[in-house]
């Protein structure tokens, strides 16, 4: 059946744009639990999914929500959940199951001020390391950080595409600002969008193994429940057949592949916005809504004659290590404003190889004063 979507120009809230993007990408199952500032996504999905032949379940908690979208994905349907800090914390174990079973799905984290219940109605960017390392164990992740409702739409589509291509839960890490912001959003007709659908195996049931990786591929082709393949999948360390294998050799191979499938494809996954980097003395590294609020500070520093470059991480994970290493060769330093107490700055510092890296933290509930941004840039520019 030809898929369709709601398309045209809208004055639309970020969270609604995210939900519409999911529908445009072909998402047909949403499991969720209400939480500010993410609830609009669930509400929109509850309203819209029945219209497009999909289904919505409001679960008893976020643990169930996350487990349910994995199940839906294995049954052959693109699926999504959305929450904020406290709910994402509850989802982490099953996010790990999704990583281990290699289950395509999308997890939206509309970040609020944290820790704990924190600032329910206000924003933060303090779950970035949680997205990277939150579930136990070692694995690769993808996280995309939109700065506007339009980009929230665009990146949610990209998130679904990456989820299918690399077979894992992909994070859209927005925040309460972009979630509740209303701006112009253009939604193209579905056939003008680049949408990656699941790659199902063309092997016959007897010949198929759920985790056999063909040469030149990083993940295996899919088989969904009900197609007669009668395969097994587990959160235990497993071999090509999906069977538990507790050997060191199998574990080494599996964990490495879960990391390498992201690491070896950074060029495909990493999206950046770069401005004035070529002759920059100071580079501001930023992401999400902070990328908008720091602009007056950058302009002020420029007015004072400083050559300021701007690097926006649209893809935050995997981190653009090589980009920072390259910039570090010719800049005086980096300034990293973020609405957390210094998370992404750790990554910049790690890749900067000793080049001055200045953290500009903010605990959340407010935005950076642009004068502080300008001051930090100046400090780096004139550092001895």
């Amino acid at each position, binding site marked *: 059946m030809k898929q369709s979507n709601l398309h045209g120009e809208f004055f639309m809230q970020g969270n609604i744009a995210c939900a519409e993007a999911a529908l445009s990408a072909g998402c047909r199952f949403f499991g969720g639990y209400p939480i500010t500032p993410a609830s609009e996504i669930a509400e929109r999905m509850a309203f819209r999914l029945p219209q497009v032949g999909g289904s919505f379940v409001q679960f008893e908690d976020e643990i*169930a929500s996350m487990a*349910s979208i994995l199940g839906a994905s294995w049954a052959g349907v693109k699926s999504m959940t959305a929450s904020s800090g406290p709910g994402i914390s509850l989802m982490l174990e099953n996010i790990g*199951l999704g990583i281990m079973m290699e289950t395509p799905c999308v997890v939206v984290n509309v970040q609020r001020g944290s820790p704990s219940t924190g600032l329910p109605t206000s924003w933060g960017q303090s779950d970035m390391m949680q997205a990277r390392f939150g579930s136990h164990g070692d694995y690769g992740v993808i996280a995309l950080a939109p700065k506007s409702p339009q980009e929230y739409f665009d990146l949610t589509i990209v998130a679904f595409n990456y989820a299918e291509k690399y077979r894992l839960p992909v994070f859209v890490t927005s925040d309460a600002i972009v979630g509740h912001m209303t701006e112009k959003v253009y939604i193209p007709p579905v056939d003008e969008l680049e949408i990656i659908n699941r790659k199902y195996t063309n092997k016959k049931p007897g010949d198929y193994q759920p985790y056999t990786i063909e040469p030149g591929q990083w993940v295996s082709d899919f088989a969904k*429940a009900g197609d007669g393949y*009668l*395969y*097994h999948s587990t959160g235990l360390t497993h071999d090509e057949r999906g*069977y538990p294998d507790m050997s060191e050799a199998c574990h080494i191979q599996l964990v490495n592949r879960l990391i390498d499938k992201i690491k070896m494809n950074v060029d495909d996954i990493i999206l950046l916005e770069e401005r004035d980097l070529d002759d920059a003395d100071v580079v501001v590294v930023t992401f999400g809504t902070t990328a908008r609020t720091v602009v007056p500070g950058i302009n002020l520093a420029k007015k004072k004659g400083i050559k300021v470059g701007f690097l926006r991480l649209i893809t935050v994970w995997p981190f653009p290590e090589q980009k920072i290493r390259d910039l570090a060769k010719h800049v005086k330093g980096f300034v990293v404003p973020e609405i957390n107490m210094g998370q992404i700055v750790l990554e910049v510092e790690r890749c900067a190889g000793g080049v001055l890296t200045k953290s500009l933290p903010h605990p959340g509930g407010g935005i950076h004063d642009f004068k502080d941004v300008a001051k930090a840039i100046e400090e780096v520019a004139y550092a001895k």
Partner: protein
Amino acid sequence: MQNKIPTHPMEDYLRMDRMPHIWCPSCGLGSIVTAFMKGVKNAGIDLNKLALVSGIGCTGRVAGYVKLDSYHTTHGRAIPFATGMKMANQDLTVAVISGDGDLFAIGGNHLIHAARRNMDLNVICVNNFIYGMTGGQNAPTTPLGAYSSTAPYGNYEQPFNLVGLAAAAGSSYVARWTALHLQRIQDSIEEMAKKKGFCFLEIISPCATVFARKNKGGTGLDLLQDYKRRSSIDHNADPQKIPLDMDGEIVCGVFVNDEKPTFAENVEKGTSRKVKEHPLYVQDRKDQEV
């Protein structure tokens, strides 16, 4: 063809390449798996369209041994995983087999809510009164006074009555059997596979390795003898009034067998007209004709 090598009667239904399994001698799980596969086969459903989801534990390992689309998930979360599967594809029959700790301690909230919604799932709880996999800790089913590795002075917690809880939460079908009642288990599984709505079956199952050892219960065979002595069948029993203890009666039977709309049916009924009249639905359909 005289010297044809005899095969195991369950060979077509089990992943023989995974044998031997991890279960202890005299564990009830082997016969329960056989009864399950026979039951679903007798139900006449297409086994290609049957998905089995397990949580974590000895019972959680069932998913790994049956020749079905099968998922070994996280501790306590088999039911929501299964719910996602069912809602994504209503053509699937989705079953959950897991332990009493998995389904009623860590996963208890999911069970009562799935029952409340009358989600179309077949949930089988293998109750051995203890945490088997992790070495004999207390379970929410451990009888008052029983010993476990975390109840070294005897259990002082009141246990759950699983059938009472499942019935109170709204299940369409509630039954209890012991691992001795293999034919009855098979029949219940068959009924559940044919039936819509949330179906719950408790199977009392012997754990010689940890439960009997901690409670001087003897061998697995001794436990089965004990079930034989203690069990009775009463389909009319009120599931609220038949809790289990260390040596009282084990009342078995099919206590609830109701017809009521499932979650998916209620969704369909509740949304279909309203959805079809909505302009966005109309727009979507119009586009599809282009």
